[in-house]
């Protein structure tokens, strides 16, 4: 095989994430924030979780409590905003939907980042990266950077590089960068900067003379496996260009719907997992109803982190539904079939449900005994109506939607309008 043909055949990973996501989402609807230092505060207006570049330049550390910043905000011209989760959720969904048009092979990794499987020559890959960057900025309105590399770990590193070095114009194709420059970068960065290496392990790595990412990439994978874990060995191999962390596909074809996310903080109790599964059950119900579909099978799953070699657990359960349904009560109950397999104390980093064997709703009238008692009473439609009128979390089934005690009283004193999800809060355009 000729060299270009070979390169074309080898799939690569594109890592796309939004720059300062929360602050960028706010700026998309309030251009007056452009160029100003902006921080977005965590729940209850606690501390700064996102900083615009201008806020970083002021030396505001991530996680700085708001009460410490408030006295100086005026002097700095600092704008602080409460977390507008409704806005960020919608902007995130738009970004992911748009990215999905560039590759059927998409893994939504978190609210503001995704991995995509891509193929092509280096020129084609760079062009694709730039096209995606331009499209997200233009269509959705938020800036992204793109890193493209043979492995997920390198793609994340390439993205970080693209963000910090303006020469890349926001898109870095790892293999197109001269090897000496790549080594230079990896030599400057501490191992702690690499995806998947826990901070607590750096000391043990340092003892072995491994300080920089470059050191780690040149380590013997077998030695690393013996001294640390298979997980750390995978990171070494990934740094050397051998893909070891597979893509987790979010959605394959139209015949299934998946609702799944990695958690910011792991779930460790069955009670919390019950709540998460309830939320997914209701999301699945809403999505099915929207597309006038019913599902015949539900699969619920959870998993521990790739990076935590201890107590790995990937429980999953497949539940045939008694009839094709979009009923939130039935779907939630079915999702809860996973709970007996969930063990308190295990740190689950991810969970989700998948509904499959989809069919158009109402194609076949069920025999009377099979009629769904909840659909009959229009529980799903009622939930949707209430949600539409009073907002998400105003009503839910059992453990799901209803906001927990904290959320009910959550302080969001500096909340911007929920521009894209609430009719009363649409962005205003001046006609003057």
């Amino acid at each position, binding site marked *: 095989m000729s060299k270009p043909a070979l390169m074309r055949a080898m799939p690569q990973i594109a890592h796309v994430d939004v720059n300062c996501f929360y602050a960028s989402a706010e700026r998309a609807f309030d251009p007056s924030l452009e160029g100003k230092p902006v921080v977005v505060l965590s729940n209850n207006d606690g501390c700064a979780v996102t900083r615009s570049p201008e806020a970083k330049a002021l030396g505001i550390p991530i996680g700085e409590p708001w009460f410490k910043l408030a006295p100086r905000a005026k002097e700095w011209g600092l704008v602080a905003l409460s977390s507008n989760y409704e806005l960020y959720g919608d902007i995130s969904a738009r970004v992911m939907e748009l990215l999905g048009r560039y590759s059927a092979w998409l893994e939504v990794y978190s609210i503001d980042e995704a991995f995509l499987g891509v193929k092509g020559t280096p020129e084609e890959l760079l062009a694709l990266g730039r096209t995606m960057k331009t499209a997200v900025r233009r269509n959705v309105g938020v800036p992204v950077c793109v890193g493209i590399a043979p492995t997920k770990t390198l793609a994340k590193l390439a993205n970080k590089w693209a963000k910090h070095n303006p020469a890349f114009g926001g898109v870095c194709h790892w293999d197109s960068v001269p090897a000496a420059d790549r080594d230079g970068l990896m030599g400057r960065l501490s191992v702690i900067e690499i995806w998947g290496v826990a901070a607590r392990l750096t000391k043990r790595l340092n003892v072995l003379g491994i300080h920089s990412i470059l050191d780690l990439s040149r380590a013997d994978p077998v030695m690393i496996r013996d001294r640390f874990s298979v997980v750390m060995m995978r990171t070494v191999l990934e740094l050397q260009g051998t893909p070891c962390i597979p893509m987790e596909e979010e959605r394959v074809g139209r015949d299934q719907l998946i609702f799944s996310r990695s958690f910011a903080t792991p779930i460790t109790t069955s009670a919390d997992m019950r709540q998460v599964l309830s939320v997914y059950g209701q999301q699945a119900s809403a999505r099915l109803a929207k597309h006038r579909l019913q599902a015949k099978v539900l699969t619920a799953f959870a998993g521990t982190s790739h990076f935590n070699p201890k107590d790995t657990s990937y429980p999953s359960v497949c539940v045939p539904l008694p009839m094709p349904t979009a009923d939130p009560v039935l779907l939630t109950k079915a999702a809860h079939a996973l709970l007996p397999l969930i063990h308190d104390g295990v740190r689950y980093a991810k969970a989700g449900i998948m509904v499959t064997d989809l069919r158009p709703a109402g194609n076949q009238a069920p025999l009377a*005994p099979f009629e769904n008692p909840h659909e009959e009473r229009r529980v799903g439609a009622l939930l949707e109506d209430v949600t539409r009128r009073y907002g998400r979390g105003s009503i839910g089934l059992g453990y799901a939607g209803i906001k927990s005690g904290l959320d009910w009283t959550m302080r969001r004193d500096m909340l911007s309008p929920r521009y894209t999800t609430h009719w009363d809060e649409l962005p205003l355009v001046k006609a003057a």
Partner: protein
Amino acid sequence: MRVAIGPRVIDAGVSLALALVSPVAVAAGYPSPAQDYFDGRIDLNEHLIQDITSTYIVRVSGDSMEQAGISDGDELIVNRALEPRDGSVVVAVLDGELTIKRLRITPAGVVLQAANPLYPDIRVPALAELTVWGVATRCLHHV
């Protein structure tokens, strides 16, 4: 109707065993002939929104576009993905604010026009210096 009864069927709300032996009359009535002609109701999203990822709805504040049929309080459907052309009604960023104007691209230069004689034209040195936030495609005018 095929009912899946595997070795590990998990009851998700209805007792199948009971249902299967139910003596209740089967409601397999003749379907309504209208059913064959029903394709679903008109969905405004489908007709008014070309691309859901790039379309936002905004609300007008002010009367400067009155003669273009765009009044104070009307909602506009704005597509960010469209290329602004001469004559487009655009949402532009002016002094940090989202502002609605008609874009004029002429040999004499780029101008943002109001649709109300009370508001003067705004000349733009070059199209590149103008931030167009999106192009309005529909006005939801309150009648």
